[in-house]
Every structure is written in structure tokens, then in C-alpha cells.
């Protein structure tokens, strides 16, 4: 037998768990603000073939990332806008330098399909479930098993005693 007090104690321990978790994360709430170079660097890929974000590529001996980051700093110091900087990098290194594919034209499909496909799949599942449930409903008998006169008489007699 479990006493109510001990049950409350365990419930309290269970409810304390989220508090501990939140407190564990709270020292990180004051995360630093990234500067503009870091933010822009995260919108570009290193073109050395490592397939990493520009600011994340720290391959020792990478012949691209250091120069690209210096160039980025230089353009920011010159006062270029974000879009101008991105376009200049595309001109220089090709379209693979941009992390996010453009949302227009053929490359827009990369964004569109992962949204449309699950919705389509959801619709198909919904349709499947609907069909299953329809099949699960028993079909009414084609002919009543009792003579029609007998059924009519039973309905008349039961009518006053039953609600619609």
C-alpha cells in the first residue's frame, strides 16, 4: 500500500524535474549577440569543399576560409549592405557560396517540396483512414428478415414509447 504522503512526495519530485532543467539552462540565457560579420559569415559556405558554414570552417591549411573572412571584414568596413556583400561573393565564388538556395525559380522547389510533400502525405493518410472507417461500418442488410407487415406493426406499437 502506498501512503498519500509518499505519493505526494514523488509527485513533488516529478514536478521538481522541470525546475532543475530550466535552472540548468538559465546561465546561458544571456548569450552574446553575434556581430554582423559572424551573421553574414553564417549565410555563406566555405568553398574549399568541406561543405561547412564559412565561420565554422577552421580546417588547418584551408586556402579559402581565412581569405574569405578577411574579404568579408573588408567589405563590412567599407559600408557595403548585406545584399551587396552576398552578391559580390556570388560573383566571385559562384552560387554555391550561398548557404540558403534562392527561393525563386527552380531552386524554390527545395523549399516548397518539403512543405507540400508532408501535406500531401497527410491528405493521403486522412483518405486512407476515412476509407478504413467506411469499410469498418457494417453494411445494412439488403432485405428485412421479418415480413414488412410485422415490422410496421412493431414500429406503430413501439412508437409512443421511444424518442427520435
Amino acid at each position, binding site marked *: 500500500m*502506498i501512503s498519500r504522503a509518499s505519493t505526494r512526495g514523488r509527485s513533488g519530485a516529478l514536478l521538481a524535474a522541470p525546475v532543475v532543467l530550466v535552472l540548468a539552462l538559465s546561465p546561458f540565457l544571456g548569450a552574446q549577440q553575434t556581430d554582423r560579420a559572424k551573421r553574414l559569415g553564417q549565410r555563406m559556405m566555405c568553398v574549399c569543399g568541406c561543405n561547412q558554414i564559412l565561420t565554422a570552417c577552421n580546417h588547418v591549411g584551408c586556402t579559402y576560409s581565412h581569405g574569405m573572412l578577411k574579404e568579408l571584414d573588408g567589405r563590412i568596413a567599407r559600408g557595403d549592405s548585406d545584399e551587396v556583400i552576398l552578391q559580390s561573393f556570388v560573383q566571385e565564388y559562384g552560387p554555391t557560396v550561398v548557404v*540558403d*538556395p534562392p527561393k525563386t525559380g527552380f531552386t524554390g522547389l527545395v523549399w516548397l517540396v518539403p512543405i507540400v510533400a508532408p501535406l500531401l502525405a497527410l491528405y493521403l493518410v486522412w483518405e486512407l*483512414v476515412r476509407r478504413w472507417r467506411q469499410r469498418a461500418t457494417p453494411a445494412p442488410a439488403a432485405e428485412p428478415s421479418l415480413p414488412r407487415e410485422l415490422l410496421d406493426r412493431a414500429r406503430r406499437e413501439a412508437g409512443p414509447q421511444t424518442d427520435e
Partner: protein
Amino acid sequence: MPYVGVTLAGVQIFFLTLNNFVTSPFRVFGGADPSGALHVARLSDGSGLNPLLQYYEMVIHPPILYLGYTGFTVPFAFAMAALLGRYPGEKWIHITRRWTMVAWCFQTVGILLGAHWAYAVLGWGGYWAWDPVENAALLPWITGTAFLHSVMMQEKRGMMKVWNVWLVFVTFMLCILGTSLTRTGVVSSVHAFAESSIGSWFFTFLGVVFLVCLAAWWKNRDYLRSDNQLDSLVSRESSFLFNNLILLAACFAVLWGTLFPVLSEAVTGNKISVGPPFFNRVNVPIALFLLFLTGVGPLLAWRKTSYDALRRNFAWPLVGGIAAGVLALALGFRDFYPLVCLILSVFVTLTILAEFYRGGRVIASRDGTNILTAVGELTMRNTRRYGGYVIHFGMVLIFIGISGSAFNQDQQKEMSVGDALSLGPYTILCQNFDQPSTANYTSDRATLEVFRDGKSQMMLYPEHRTYLASQVSETIVAVESTPLRDLYVVYAGHSPETGRPVIHAYLNPLVKWIWFGGIVVVLGTGLAMFPNRSSALVLRTATEKTWGENRSPQAATASAPFLQRTGHD
């Protein structure tokens, strides 16, 4: 099942052909001169192992991932055999359940070891970059997870037979696709060291496998009719259905993003990059919905769940989750996804704990034992179900660990001896630079003292090594890992302008939860594969029964309840 042997042999013949005739691992390096004579390239001791792979986890990461990939061949072979032979019932599923779980477990461990290697060796401060080869390992893991869930629908209700067969087929094909992405270099990756020119072989094999699967299914599709229909949308069946839908959506999104650069180049002639932000934007909401289903699904009843049962099972976990969210908001949490992840993690954890507690309480009150003994007894009576809950809890820990990345901080600085770098609560003071060397490499090493609140806490020694044989450099990261945060310090090289060493420090919260969650997942999988205690009693009873006629009727009656399997999912 002769078809099983044929299928396994077919797969084996393909790989043995590759190894023996196409890309032998014992190939001689060199070439023919104009006269046709073969000149063997001679290196006294070779170039050594790729420096990136000179790390102890690399001894076990590839074979473990390999076991995951190859393990999925067994359920594939049994599914194919059941279909071709039109074997009745779900016998192939019972036979392959442990095989599937073992393969899935190895795949999980292989992926996590790869992530840990990337974290400890590549030195960019993270563990998952959505690299095409990482994605290739994730894809069969996702479909394998979907199969492990949907297979229960077939076992319990005789439903989703076509779906299950195709999930196994797709999982196997994704294993082959993953291998081909790693080995062919179709997409650019940090794993380029494994590239060779065997792409056409792999894609031909993949095409043949797909056609065989399609033909086998088409010819025998009438054998796969469902025995039952869905009775209610609020039921275990529908939760599995949605769980599978979400997992397949995630799988498709990852596959789509991975292969889109190739598709774009084929259609428009321009190769583009699909980087981590795409995968994060698409997959994070999907993963969170999956986390929600992880909490909801196991507590719904088969066929139909009543309102009372819903209220009974979900009220307190829901209150706990919302309370955690309110508390987090009060403490200043403003990032949407980590907040949702926190709420759902608490919700799922409480549903799991409540499930153990409810079952344990019944046994405790009946047997007069304490609750912990009762929970142990409960778990051992239905290892599959409660092992599954342990796996779910491990996944919750992994989700919490991943959500910590929203709070990552980093600082980079050119440093000389005596310089300091501040990051979060830490101050890193540069004490010394030296150049230790071994027969294998020379190294630039920093000696850093870490202070917290003015008190010295630890010494860290990040390195930047150059391997002599290959003349390739790499970083050796210094990580101080605690359950709350990792202080991760990289010797990033030297500034080209000043020649001074560059130190890059990261503060990554909760990373350890990911590795610990992985261990919990492995333990849960082991538990789920363990035979039920009641099954052992069934065996014992059956053995006693066959031993003779001398058992008393009372003894037979006493053991009768054990003849009924109590295990359920």
C-alpha cells in the same frame, strides 16, 4: 526459407564482385610505362592513416555503422522471402525483430560516434553539420525507426502489411544509397577520403533492387491485405500512423536537401549549396512534433481511447510540461524552439515516469513489495514495452542536448603569452606555447589556464598537429565537459598577418546530454531485446509438462496462469 538465403547471397555477390574485381582494397598503386611495364609506386612506409582518422573512436565508428547498414539486410531478406514465398502470418516479423533492433542500435551508436568524432576532431565546435554522408547514415535510421513502430500494427492488428514490407525495402535501399553517397562523391562532403569511381555499379545495383522489390510486391500484393481497419482516430494505431508519416516526412526532407544540389545541376546546369539552415528549418519542427508523439503514442489504447483514459494519462504530464514552460518564460527563455523542446521533453518524461509508476504501484500493492522492486518486476515482465520507454527517455535526453545548441557562445582571439580571453563565466589565460613532436607528427600546443570567478579551475592543452608522412595538419581540441556545458578550445592556427597563434573558444551547453542519451538508448534497446520473465516461466511450465504424467492436477492449475503471455506493447 530458401528465398532468404538467395536474397542474402545476391547482396553478398554484389559486394564481393566489387571487392574482388572492381575496387580491390589490395590494389597496387602505380601505372604502366610507355613500354607497357608496370611500375609500382613504392613508399617505404606509406602515407599513414589519414590524420582525421587517427583518433580512437575511428577504430569503432566505421565498423559499428557498417554493422548497422549491413544488419538491415536481414529483415530485408526475410521480408522479400515472405513476399515471394507468400508465407502466412507475421512470422518473418517475429524472426527479424531482434535483427532489426540490433541493426537499428548499431546504426544509432554509429551515428552518435560519428557525431562525437566530428565534435572532438574537426574542431568547428559542433557535432552535426548536415554533411551528405552524415545524412546518408541518418536516412536508413529514420526509416528503420518507422519500421520498428509500424511493425507493431501488423503484429497486433494485422494492419499496414504493404507499408511494412516497403519500409524494410526502402530502409535497405537507403543503406545502399548511403554507401554509394559515401563512396562515389556525387555530393561534396568532408568524407571525401572514401571516394572512388564505383558510382555506376552502386546505382545499377540500386535500380535492380528497386525493380525486384516492385515486381515482388506487384505479383504478391493480394497476400498483403490488412486483416483489420482503424476504429478510431484517438488510438494507438493512428498514433503509429502519424509517427510513421512524420518520420517519413523527415526522411524525405533530408534526402531532398541532400540530393537537390545534384538535381539542380542536372536541370539548370548550376550547382547550388543546401546548407545546415535549410535542414534545421525543415527538420526542427518535424522533430518536435515527433517528440510530442513520443509522449502521446504509447499511452493511447489499441482500437480506441476513452476521454477518461486520456484525462487520466495526460493531465499531470501536461500540467508539468506547461509549468516548465511558464517557469522558463519567467526566467527569460525567449527562443521558441528550445522552449517548445523543453515543454515537450518534460511532458514526455513525465508520461514515461507515470507509466512506470502506475504499473509498479499495481504490482507493489498486490505483492506487498516496495515500488522500486515492483517497477523492476514490471519492466522484466514486458521488456519490449518498458525497454521502449527507456529508449524514448534516451531520445528525450538527446533532444534536450541538441536544444542546448541554441545557447552556444564563442570567441576567437589572437593570443600571446599572458593574454586573456573571456567567454561566459570563464577567463582563459595563455600560459605558454610549445612544439612537442613524436615520430608521427610535430605539434604547436598552447597551455591555457581557465579561471572562473577569479579561481583557477583547470588547464587545457589544445594542439595543432602536422603529420610527417602525409604533411596534413589537423586540430586536437581541448574539451572540458560537464553536464551543464562544454568549454571547447581550438588551436585554430596562426594569423597570416601577425603570425600570432589564434585561439577559438566555444561554450556549448548540454552537449553531454546527447552522449548520455545515446547510452540510455543503447541500454533501452538491450532491455527491449531481453526475453520477458513470464516467457521464461512459460518455457519452464511447458518443459515440466512434457516431462511426465506425474504432475499433480493442483500443480498444473497453479502454473496455468503462466501459460498466458502477459507481454504486450
